[in-house]
């Protein structure tokens, strides 16, 4: 008798929880304002990255990659990207031809939208520099943008988004993406909390 009542109560509880979860999922906003978020995210707010041997030493010793991570780590959200030589998440570089993309972030995730593994790849068929030199793509400029994809902000293409780190095109000599725009900061805070 007691068990029957318990089961009935449990049934109501399950329905209640189910409806709750459903409402929660439905209420997650799909569209954000001045930044674009994919709804894919890391489960934890602390993530790790290592640098593959294909990455030129100068990109590390110059602080270009470190400064790119630091921009996001200092944005005032809970999110952190730390270096760990044993991380599955990796930054690589290679020669992929002048195929119109200068770098990319590949993010593997599960059905719930949580990221399992992430990779950033630089295309060295294009010229790179760590000093903002005029005919080269700036490593820190592009790395800051790519780490923005790491936390799963999307590209922006409107002309009004031009001076944001997440603007989806880049030019040689450009360095403004090194510094986060207030909308980039709003994006990371929105996803990972303050």
């Amino acid at each position, binding site marked *: 008798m007691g*068990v*029957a009542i318990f*089961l009935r109560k*449990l049934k109501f509880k399950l329905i209640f929880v189910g409806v709750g979860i459903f409402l929660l999922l439905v209420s997650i906003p799909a569209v954000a304002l001045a930044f674009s978020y*994919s709804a*894919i995210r890391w489960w934890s707010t602390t993530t790790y990255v290592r640098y593959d041997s294909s990455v030129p030493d100068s990109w590390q010793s110059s602080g270009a990659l470190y400064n790119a991570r630091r921009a996001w780590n200092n944005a005032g959200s809970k999110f952190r990207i730390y270096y760990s030589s044993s991380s599955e998440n990796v930054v690589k570089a*290679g020669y*992929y*031809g002048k*195929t*119109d*993309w*200068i*770098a*990319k*972030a*590949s*993010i*593997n*995730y*599960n*059905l*719930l939208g949580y990221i399992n593994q992430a990779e950033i790849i630089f295309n060295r068929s*294009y010229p790179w520099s760590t000093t903002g030199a005029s005919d080269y793509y700036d490593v820190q400029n*592009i790395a800051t*943008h*790519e780490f923005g*994809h790491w936390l*799963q902000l*999307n*590209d922006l*293409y*409107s*002309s009004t988004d031009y001076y944001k780190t997440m603007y*989806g*095109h*880049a*030019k040689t000599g450009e360095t403004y993406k090194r510094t986060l725009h207030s909308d980039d900061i709003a994006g990371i805070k929105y996803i990972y909390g303050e």
Partner: protein
Amino acid sequence: MKNRIAILALVGVVVIIAGLLYWRTLIKPRKQVVNGILVEMDIPTLSKKADTILIGTVKSKLPSAKDNSKKRLSKVYTDVIVVPEKYLKNPQDSPELKVRLAGGKTDDAWVWVEDEASLERGEHVLLFLSKDAEARDVWTVTGLCQGKFNISGSKVKQQFSDEEIELNRLEQQIQKVQD
């Protein structure tokens, strides 16, 4: 006794559902999103770089497949067939062109490439196309999403852009570069 069986059955069902969820969410899928950063290309640059430029309609989309080319943004790609009606640069003989786009869905992988041009069946488009670096008789969209314009009436709009321009004006800009 009946209650005991009910509890056991309930526990069994919960365990099976949890197991399925675990498998489906953590083990089975290889879902990937790829975000690139692109070389910025304006109309003159696109016009110079493209091997052919055309106005046409997307006739069909073929099933996605995989290759190991590292030049593409993803290992999964999808071909679409475009029927040209007018060329603005370097006309081709073939009545249909095969355009290869990065991303797509196969049995065990699902890849979405944010910066790639999107071409859906029935779309009326102006395309800047480059010869594929590897496959013969295959084209890619020059500058990825930058090389695709939707046509509606006398206006065109670049993918991701919110700015509409006159088709005539775009054609003139393309022509000017070639003269």
